[in-house]
């Protein structure tokens, strides 16, 4: 068992995909599912193991590159591999329905998207992290253009342009770091970051902020994000929302706390997060396209997470990580369920989609909506109350009032959709849900309820993650190769 497999197995799979394709589509889909399953099971096997775990490449860490798994990355790893597993099952259905698509290449990009995201959260070397950033980036560009129609290509081009800007800023920052510190190992950088000239450190931080912030969809840099969601297929939307955006967020705060920027930039990140939340929730009110709507909703939730994660208090951060997990599951559920509807109606307009008739879909979508709104007994509630509790303990009443007020705006459009689903006056079209999707969606809904009524299942891991994030001593020791 080695952490390297998280990257190497998908790469091996991708390289061999042409041969899987020759063996027939069943083999192809099956092997992709198998791959996701293996990675997920490997992650599950890491649960309960003493953390951090390390897997070195070529040479011992401060010199070489290593993958390090601490509590913080374990949580994300669980989310990512689980999402990948769910989506790979869903894609089985998708390609059954949409034959003639370039299935093999989709699986290549899909698996590498996951592998790249996992690489970003595991790597302890900032240049290596940049490579994974690019892998994730290229996969996202292509996946958003996967439809090859006008909208898809447009979103691909837009994403590519933004990705290029972000990567240039990140490369610049890495160069400055290497020039100043003489290494790209995260441990050494963290150790020496306070020694560099403050002005240059501001420049470095700023460039990293622009680079990762633009990708993590922070406010003045997220005008592209809804377009990307609108142009791509909905399972990819689910991945963008629950995996890719979360991976960038992971890196953002990993670096934030490793470089110990909390004291200096906390307020700034918090305000940016708050503005993101406010603007996106208000904008979402005005949407007619369901994909755009949930894109804005994702942006809004990321805003809350940015607000809460930057606080440097273990209570709030733990709550935010809980909220993040629950948001990932809920958004995956929502996007996959919407995918079924969009496939049926061949449109993503809210007015048209509201005409479906399916008790099952209504229930799971309602569960997803309520969970994102933070209403008990669903998992979103626990996350939100933990965040609010954390803010209360630091007596930050402005943040509490802000979150609650904007949440009402959020409720407007979520319940408008719910009311539309429940409206009896519409001309209804019965939508059948296939057995695979039935199982997937039920699983996700059950998870949402389970984490809502029995949060201890998850809080254990979020507490681990919080501890690892806020006190990265162990991580640093491993990254520096101490005691290996």
């Amino acid at each position, binding site marked *: 068992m080695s952490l*390297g497999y998280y990257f190497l197995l998908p*790469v091996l799979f991708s390289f061999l995909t042409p041969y899987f394709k020759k063996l027939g589509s069943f083999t192809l889909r099956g092997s992709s599912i198998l791959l996701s399953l293996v990675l997920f099971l490997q992650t599950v096997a890491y649960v309960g193991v003493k953390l951090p775990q390390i897997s070195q490449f*070529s040479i011992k860490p401060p010199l070489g590159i290593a993958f390090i798994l601490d509590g913080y990355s374990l949580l994300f790893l669980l989310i990512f591999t689980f999402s990948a597993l769910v989506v790979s099952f869903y894609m089985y259905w998708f390609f059954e329905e949409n034959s003639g698509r370039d299935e093999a*290449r989709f699986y290549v990009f899909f698996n590498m998207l996951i592998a790249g995201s996992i*690489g970003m959260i595991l790597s302890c070397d900032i240049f290596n992290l940049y490579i994974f950033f690019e892998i994730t980036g*290229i996969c996202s560009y*292509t996946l958003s253009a996967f439809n090859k129609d006008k909208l898809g290509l447009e979103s691909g081009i837009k994403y590519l342009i933004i990705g290029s800007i972000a990567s240039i800023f990140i490369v610049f920052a890495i160069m400055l770091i290497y020039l100043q510190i*003489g290494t790209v190992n995260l441990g050494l950088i963290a150790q020496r970051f306070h020694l560099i000239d403050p002005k240059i450190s501001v420049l470095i931080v700023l460039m990293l902020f622009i680079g990762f912030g633009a990708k993590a969809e922070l406010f003045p840099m997220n005008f592209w994000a809804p377009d990307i969601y609108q142009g791509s297929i909905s399972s990819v939307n689910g991945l963008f929302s629950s995996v890719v955006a979360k991976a960038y967020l992971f890196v953002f705060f990993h670096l934030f706390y490793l470089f110990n920027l909390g004291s200096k930039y906390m307020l700034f990140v918090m305000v940016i997060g708050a503005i993101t939340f406010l603007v996106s929730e208000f904008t979402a009110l005005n949407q007619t396209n369901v994909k755009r709507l949930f894109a804005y909703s994702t942006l809004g939730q990321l805003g809350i997470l940015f607000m809460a994660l930057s606080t440097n208090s273990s209570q709030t951060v733990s709550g935010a990580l809980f909220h993040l997990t629950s948001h990932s599951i809920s958004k995956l559920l929502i996007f996959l369920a919407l995918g079924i509807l969009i496939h049926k109606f061949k449109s993503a307009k809210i007015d048209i989609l509201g005409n479906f008739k399916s008790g099952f879909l209504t229930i799971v979508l309602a569960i997803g909506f309520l969970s994102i709104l933070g209403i008990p007994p669903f998992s979103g509630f626990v996350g939100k109350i933990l965040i609010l509790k954390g803010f209360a303990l630091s007596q930050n009443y402005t943040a509490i009032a802000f979150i609650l007020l904007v949440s009402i705006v959020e409720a407007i459009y979520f319940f408008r959709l719910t009311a539309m689903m429940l409206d009896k006056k519409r001309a209804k079209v019965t939508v059948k849900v296939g057995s695979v999707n039935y199982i997937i969606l039920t699983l996700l809904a059950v998870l949402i309820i389970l984490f809502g009524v029995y949060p201890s299942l998850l809080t254990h891991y979020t507490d681990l993650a919080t501890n690892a994030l806020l006190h990265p001593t162990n991580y640093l020791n491993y990254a520096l190769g101490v005691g290996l």
Partner: protein
Amino acid sequence: MNLKKVLPLKHIVLSLLSSALLLSVVGLLMQVKTDMFKNVGTIYLNLNMQTAAANAVTSVVTFFRGIDTVGEVTVLFLATSGVALMLSATQRTCDKVVKQESFILNAGSRLLLSVIILFGVYIIIHGHLSPGGGFQGGVVIATAFLLLFLANPNMKLSHGILTLGESLSGATYVLVVIIGLFKMNILLGNFLPHPIGEIGELISGGIIPVVYILVGIKVGSEMSVIVEYFVKEDYYKEVCDA
């Protein structure tokens, strides 16, 4: 109407902004001290005798930071797949038309082909001894095919062989990385015997030349595919328009 009046203003503002940024960034970067800490590169140079590759850059690329190169190969592979995904459909729509080919160009390019490929192979194989390596050599090989395509657009690459080369070399590369785990208990360990001879000999450096040869094959075939797609795209477009 108004736009044209506004546009130059925008340009002026942006150029002024760029200049201002330029000045302040330059002012800032002047303070960069490159000698605050010992660079990791100097440590690599000291260690380089152990890896036994004459070209330190190669040993950094393929060994010390070897996983970067796996990622890099993956990026290239993904880009190729992306280009293929984008440009493959049009090839199906019209592909019967034959463009006249010039015999002289054809023969000349075929003549050059072997020379260029040989040069590419040389660059790949000598990657650990002299400047160059798998990426550079692979691209040189691809340019040979570019020449061929330009001379004769009807030329068809055997995709089976290219795919085989690409997949096999890629898979072998990954296996090499994993074998290190079993042999040396570290991923991408240099498990082949090294140093065998003196530094600077062709067979030295353990897995480094092996990796670069695999990368060379992979990059060569990938780049040929990209080039083929772009050339054919161009060509079919012309034909379809006619």
